[in-house]
């Protein structure tokens, strides 16, 4: 009986560590950058944000898509090399009664872009995904929001930078923003 409980506990631990493993940042490599932002999915048909990708525009590459890590609405990815990028796609699973198992939202080809010229921490902003259109022609809008902002986003992901050089960089940024040290 005891053994069953121990096995079950180990399984839960294993699952939990599996979930957090893909959120843990890898060590700062070369002169690269950390890019992050926040997407509120509360008004979207998806129940949470579990996918977010960027498209590398420059330098040109055959594999331009970068899948970001996600945690509680924050999308982030460390070790991004210098270049030009555009937001590409994001999504999340539908709820229990939802008509789709996963919802994808695509940004248009001419969506906003950003350039990483110097290594550092790049905050893309906080946004809210809102339903638009009609039942027969569903669409979505993304609008900027003020809260949660950069500080709150860093506070959410700081735990996944532990033991890496990113931790120090994020702590310094938090201090600049008036957050915890």
């Amino acid at each position: 009986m005891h053994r069953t409980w121990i096995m079950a506990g180990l399984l839960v631990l294993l699952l939990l560590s599996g979930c957090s493993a893909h959120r843990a940042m890898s060590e700062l490599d070369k002169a690269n950058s950390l890019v992050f932002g926040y997407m509120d999915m509360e008004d979207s048909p998806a129940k949470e944000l579990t996918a977010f990708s960027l498209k590398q525009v420059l330098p040109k590459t055959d594999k331009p898509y970068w899948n970001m890590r996600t945690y509680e609405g924050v999308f982030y990815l460390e070790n991004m090399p210098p270049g030009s990028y555009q937001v590409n796609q994001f999504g999340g699973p539908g709820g229990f009664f939802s008509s789709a198992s996963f919802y994808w939202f695509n940004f248009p080809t001419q969506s906003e872009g950003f350039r990483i010229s110097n290594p550092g921490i790049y905050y893309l902003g906080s946004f809210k995904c809102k339903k638009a259109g009609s039942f027969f022609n569903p669409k979505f809008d993304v609008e900027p929001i003020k809260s949660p902002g950069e500080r709150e986003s860093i506070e959410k992901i700081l735990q996944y930078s532990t033991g890496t050089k990113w931790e120090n960089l994020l702590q310094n940024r938090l201090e600049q923003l008036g957050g915890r040290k």
Partner: protein
Amino acid sequence: MRRRPLLSCATLIFLALTACMGSPRPSVESIRDVGEDEIVVVGRVELVPPLEKGEQKLKNMIGTGMLRNKLLLLTDEQWRTFEAEPGPGDHRLRIEAPFDETFFVLSSKRPFYILVGELWLEAADKVYFPAGLKVNIRPTDRAIYIGTLRYQRDEFFHFPKFQIIDDYARAQAEFRSKFGDRYLLRKELAVSVKERK
């Protein structure tokens, strides 16, 4: 391997869409093709910097000649703006303008508007160029020059600069070499809809 069904699907959608687009404004090869109530519209489109090799991924797709290295200028005799992506019906009377080449297309003698430019990068990936231009035509015209539409772009296909360049001397030389000097190519540069009187 997993991409193949997706590609085939995109190709089918592309074929269906292009089939619904209808005919463009015909290219004029001889002045004899121009009826009494018609004119030749002469112009050019430039993209700075130009498309790079591989930026348009239309290789091995049937019927893409109309799109390759070309900007589709969607036109209409009525001014309108688009709330959403233009549909196949909006492509009737389009000008298929090859980048960096002078085009000579047939038009009725009624003034028209260049609503927007459309560039196909892939079967399901288009970018839109600003236009909002009016082309004025006089009943006595046989041929008009509307200018060079020069688009300055960045890597995100945003256009920080859009100009109508007067390159009449070159257009006239090409017009004469193509059609002879019997007909006058009148300069009537396209004007921004905001500037029209």
